[in-house]
């Protein structure tokens, strides 16, 4: 009984997949798709750059770019890692919040705040090509 049920189910799934595949070919993205999505990403990178150089994240007019020109010395490739300033292993966005709160004297961002995503996007973009090295101090 079990074997027949399994075979029947499998057959039904394969049939459905073939029909759907014929209609949509949903898993074949094109070069144009890639370009478009890359531009979507770069739009957010630009937002991140704007935040990076603006004083709006803090309350004293200090900007990220003052200490991190071109997001240098942020080391996104080393996260998650043990962060001495927080005493535990964290992800990059937690350190972004640490910097916003401490040197910039601003309010921390929610982890899913579009601004946080934009900042991470910009940081990662300026570090493109560098090998992952998680945990490195």
């Amino acid at each position: 009984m079990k074997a027949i049920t399994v075979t029947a189910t499998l057959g039904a799934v394969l049939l459905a997949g073939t029909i759907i595949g014929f209609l949509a070919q949903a898993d074949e993205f094109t070069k144009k798709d890639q370009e478009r999505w890359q531009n979507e990403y770069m739009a957010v990178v630009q937002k991140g750059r704007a935040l990076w150089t603006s004083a709006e994240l803090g309350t004293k007019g200090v900007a990220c770019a003052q200490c991190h020109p071109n997001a240098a010395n942020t080391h996104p490739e080393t996260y998650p890692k043990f962060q001495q300033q927080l005493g535990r292993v964290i992800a990059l966005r937690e350190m972004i919040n640490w910097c916003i709160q401490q040197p910039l004297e601003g309010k921390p961002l929610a982890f899913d705040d579009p601004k946080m995503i934009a900042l991470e996007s910009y940081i990662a973009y300026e570090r493109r090509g560098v090998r992952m090295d998680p945990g490195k101090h």
Partner: protein
Amino acid sequence: MNDFRLNRRDFIKRAGVATAAAAFPLSVVELAFGAAQDKFTFAHISDAHIQHVKGTEFVRNWDRGLIRAVAEANLLTPKPDFVMFGGDLAQLGTKEELDHGAEMLSRLRHKTYCVMGEHDYYLDLGEYWSKLFGPHYYSFDHKGVHFVVLNSILTYDEWTYNRWPTARQRMLEMAGLDNPNGSPFMVGEKQREWLRADLARVAKTTPIVLFSHSPIQKLYKGWNFWTEDAEQVQALLKPFPTVTVIYGHVHQIQYNQVGNITFHSVMATAWPWPYPQSYAQAEHAMPKLTVPMNRADPFFERDATGWQFIDMDTGRVMMDYNLYNNTSRVVAYNPATRQPEDRVYQDPSKRIPPQDHY
């Protein structure tokens, strides 16, 4: 470790290294050559970046950096001959910032000279600066050394006079280190002519020390660690066998030897900058000779900031980088190798983990 009754000679002999560590009373280290009257010291404080928030409030972090440097410089015993301020006293060149910075500098108990920085200049092209500190470029002689101060953060006329609708906009554009709308620093023809005439009156045997804000080298254009007419300025200095250029702007330890010229950067009192090798997309020409400063812990606001005092001996410089929260670094001209070297860390096997920047 019970008895640390040391005088400086014992310390030097014991350490096997001649170093004027950031301690006081300060005594001039006796190097192997030179008569006593050729030795003197001066202090160098730079890049305070006093930043106005609103009303009477300034960014506390940068204020504390300058306050501490001034307080420590005042403790030097015996007193240094003078203090040089290396530029970027203000962050956006406003009267409030320059006044607040000047007030803090005025607590120095020593004669003070100043170098112009771009953050001081681009709001009003140095007009208020001149009222506080005098000329933008000048020279003076002291104990047999010819000192020159250049305004090396000028740039192309088009950018300075025509590009921006307001002075404030111009200042903001130049204030961003990594701003693609910036413009390369230069000394410019007028000052090069002045320098040529000034040096013509100086005997070729006289040691020269040139103070500048930009590096008088081409190190990394993206962050204006750059002087567009560096070669021409260096050419003017070529006839002199003993030349040192001391520059600010970079907020980190750098040193180099180019022909007859020894280069030393100075630390900022405000905040440190990453080394160009930390920017993965950069192509740079940072001197291989430099052993980097320690990486900063951003929790300690004074980490990787500091000031320096300089021992002069027969016109050669020994620079003691007085680093907060870190062991001080001493970089001195080595007559044997004819280049500046760190007294402890120059040998790669002596390096320590915090000096690894990536």
